[in-house]
């Protein structure tokens, strides 16, 4: 009797759960998402609930989301590759950072849905509107066969790195602000010799950088091109739009600049440990800890915050770094080479095995719409912001600005608390950055964004044909490794620039530098045609 009662009760429970499940489902169905970023975040909170941005998006689009990514993985690319080995059958939407090449490769092998037919047929209205308004983004992501597999992350705000110089040291030594490279050299010599940090030791390091590859970009001071765009791997450049492409690292201007930088290194004007220091430790070490650093070339907002660093100001109360426009050599106008890249190799895709393609596409398209853009940039309305400001962009609540400043920065705050600013397919909004950029840095941004600062012509982000891509993949890594080692030896004085230059260029050609330039040139010709 009792057993029968229990079984009946059990059956009733099961029925209720099923019914609940059926009603709990949204009209658009369920979307499984495998998306991670920064090697630590997925779309769920630690308590398994969805992050606010994604919960809000799901509600607006009318779908239920299920997070199928590994919550504790530490290598996002590896997780993605494991999914590749499963033919991407576990989820409808996949994505992450630095996956563009894989999106293209697996897309052509049949793993992902080609988005172009849907763009053309109107199923992706917001994304289509964006592409129509931005032909250079279109040219950067749609491959030569006219297919597009991913919705990309498009950054906003051109200014990236700027030159920062210790103006408290300038003041202390009674020096005028330098206006040319020649004057800058005199200033750096004074930094080195006249003991501006006042400790009686000749321990000052006039120029330093957190990343040695960025340090090599100092060669631009003497007029040489170094990198094509934000990515340190692209070293094929052109001098102006429509110009002939060439390899920056085998150019005569590069040789002349190398000699100057080698001289600076020898004379102690460049950090002697530029290439051996652990990455991303120089600013903390040489400013906050030792107060020996003079000048660097760094991201404008995050570095500007050193002016407000309490620990640093306790030890060095006068500490002040200010933004300077790039200096020119021998009367030429200086130029800046680093700007935010047009399209990041991040974003997300729809699996070809998805049974819910329409819902997946609608979900992804929402992020490119106005509401979606505001939400994924600033967080959910009502939680991190209430209304739009006079310039039409959301305004953060003051408590959000306070809390984020205390907890490791706005980016981290938004990633953790909201799931906003994740590198999925969306168009960033620089206005999210402006409110927490320190005033000095804002002045720097405005300076670099004005006509006063000239930017080098950046190698556009382009798509390659299969043949061109093979050449690029085959040559790039090996050639870059050789170039880097040789250039480092020349800068540090282990190799002579004049004596070794011919052999260096010959070896670069042997490793394929000219074939590489040819591949870029043909892709560039196509790019020019499609953006004109």
């Amino acid at each position, binding site marked *: 009797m009792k057993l029968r009662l229990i079984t009946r009760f059990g059956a009733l429970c099961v029925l209720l759960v099923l019914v609940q499940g059926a009603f709990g489902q949204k009209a658009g169905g369920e979307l499984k998402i495998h998306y991670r970023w920064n090697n630590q975040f997925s779309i769920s909170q630690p308590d398994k609930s969805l992050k606010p941005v994604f919960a809000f998006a799901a509600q607006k689009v009318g779908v239920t989301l299920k997070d199928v990514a590994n919550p504790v993985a530490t290598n996002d*690319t590896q997780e993605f590759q494991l999914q590749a080995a499963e033919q991407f059958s576990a989820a409808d939407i996949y994505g992450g950072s630095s996956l563009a090449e894989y999106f293209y*490769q697996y897309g052509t092998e049949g793993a992902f849905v080609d988005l172009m037919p849907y763009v053309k047929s109107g199923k992706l209205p917001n994304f289509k509107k964006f592409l129509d308004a931005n032909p250079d983004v279109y040219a950067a992501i749609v491959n030569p066969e006219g297919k597009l597999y991913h919705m990309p992350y498009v950054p906003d705000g051109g200014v990236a790195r700027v030159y920062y110089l210790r103006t408290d040291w300038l003041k202390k030594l009674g020096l005028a602000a330098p206006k040319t490279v020649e004057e800058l050299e005199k200033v750096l010599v004074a930094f080195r010799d006249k003991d501006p940090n006042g400790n009686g030791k000749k321990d000052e390091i006039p120029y330093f950088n957190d990343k040695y590859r960025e340090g090599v970009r100092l060669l631009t001071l003497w007029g040489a091109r170094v990198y094509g765009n934000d990515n340190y791997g692209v070293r094929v450049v052109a001098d102006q739009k429509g110009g002939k492409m060439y390899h920056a690292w085998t150019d005569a201007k590069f040789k002349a600049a190398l000699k100057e930088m080698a001289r600076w290194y020898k004379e102690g004007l460049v950090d002697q*440990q530029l*290439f*051996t220091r652990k990455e991303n430790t120089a600013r903390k070490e040489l400013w906050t800890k030792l107060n020996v650093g003079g000048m660097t070339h760094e991201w404008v907002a995050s570095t500007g915050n050193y002016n407000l660093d309490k620990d640093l100001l306790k030890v060095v109360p006068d500490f002040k770094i200010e933004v300077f426009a790039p200096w020119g050599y021998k009367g030429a106008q200086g130029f800046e080479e680093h700007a935010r890249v047009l399209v990041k190799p991040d974003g997300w895709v729809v699996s070809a095995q998805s049974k819910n393609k329409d819902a997946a596409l609608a979900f992804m398209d929402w992020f490119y719409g106005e509401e979606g853009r505001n939400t994924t940039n600033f967080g959910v309305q009502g939680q991190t912001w209430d209304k739009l400001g006079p310039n039409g962009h959301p305004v953060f609540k003051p408590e959000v600005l306070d809390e984020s400043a205390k907890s490791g920065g706005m980016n981290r705050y938004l990633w953790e608390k909201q799931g906003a600013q994740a590198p999925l397919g969306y168009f960033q909004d620089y206005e999210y950055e402006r409110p927490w950029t320190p005033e000095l840095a804002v002045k720097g941004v405005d300076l670099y964004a004005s006509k006063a600062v000239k930017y080098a012509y950046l190698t556009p982000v382009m798509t390659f044909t299969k043949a061109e891509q093979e050449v690029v993949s085959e040559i790039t*890594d090996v*050639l870059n*490794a050789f170039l880097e*080692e040789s250039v480092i030896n020349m800068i540090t004085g*282990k190799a002579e620039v004049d004596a070794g230059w011919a052999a260096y260029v010959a070896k670069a050609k042997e490793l394929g530098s000219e074939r590489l330039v040819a591949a870029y040139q043909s892709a560039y010709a196509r790019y020019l045609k499609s953006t004109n």
Partner: protein
Amino acid sequence: MGMTAKKGIAGELRENWQLYVLALPLAVWLILYAYKPLIGLVIAFQKFSPFKGIAGSPFVGLDNFQRLMAGPSAYMFWRALKNTVQISLYGLAFGFPIPIILAILFNEAREGVFRKGVQTVSYLPNLISEVTIASIVLAMLQLNGLANVAIEGLLGVFGVDYKRISWMSEPAFFQGIYVLTGIWKNAGFDSIVFFAALVGISPTLYEAARIDGASRIQRIRYVSIPGIMPTIIIMLIIRVGNVLNVGFERVLLMYNPTIYSTADVLGTFTFRLGSSGFIDYGLSTASSMFNSLVGFALVIVTNRIARKASETSLW
């Protein structure tokens, strides 16, 4: 003959089934985790895509090996190979005898708290992770690190001027630093095997030697060392087999672009080939397979030599 053999196996199983059951989990693990993955070696002969899988990726024969050894990156490959062999040989020449000497010293020392204490302290570095060790070493060898400060002070006592050396920027020093770090980390732990072997030598042999008038050094030379010779030979064969397995982790943590010419080893070379984010699985597998094949050949050769030269060999 056949009948006896069959009865032999069945009888063997019946008699000693407990031992076979004990060995069963390990056998299963070996088959699943060591032998089954060997199927993946075929990737070395393919243009592999994880999406297409092993079955779907095109076969390219020896293309990957040809690219590895004669393609554009060949000069880096051969340099990495040279560095790997050099570091291993230094490690072998200096790092192999030291645990033996250490074990002999422990054996000759009087048993007691002091010996136990020294032994324990010598094992401890083995427990520290590679990351911590690399950080310690790098911090000590910086321009204003402990090493330079100490040498400066020492030479200053004699009035000698010393210009601080950036140890980690000179290619010539890296291999020595690497090997010394390895010795510091592993010598104590490696000496355990030899110490255990020494303890197993019958004390009567030492007695007999002492009665015959042998000094301590002579006792070590004629009793201790021959006594652990089988252990030494086995450990040597294993060590030689690992000649191409120079620790990827430690090199990666300790090297930097200015010393690639002596610091780049096979593991780090293949790692950097994939550093642009786009990994060539076929090439990496070919590189690892080359690594393993050479190690395999070396083990066979060394074993044969050991068998000819002594009674001890792995098989």
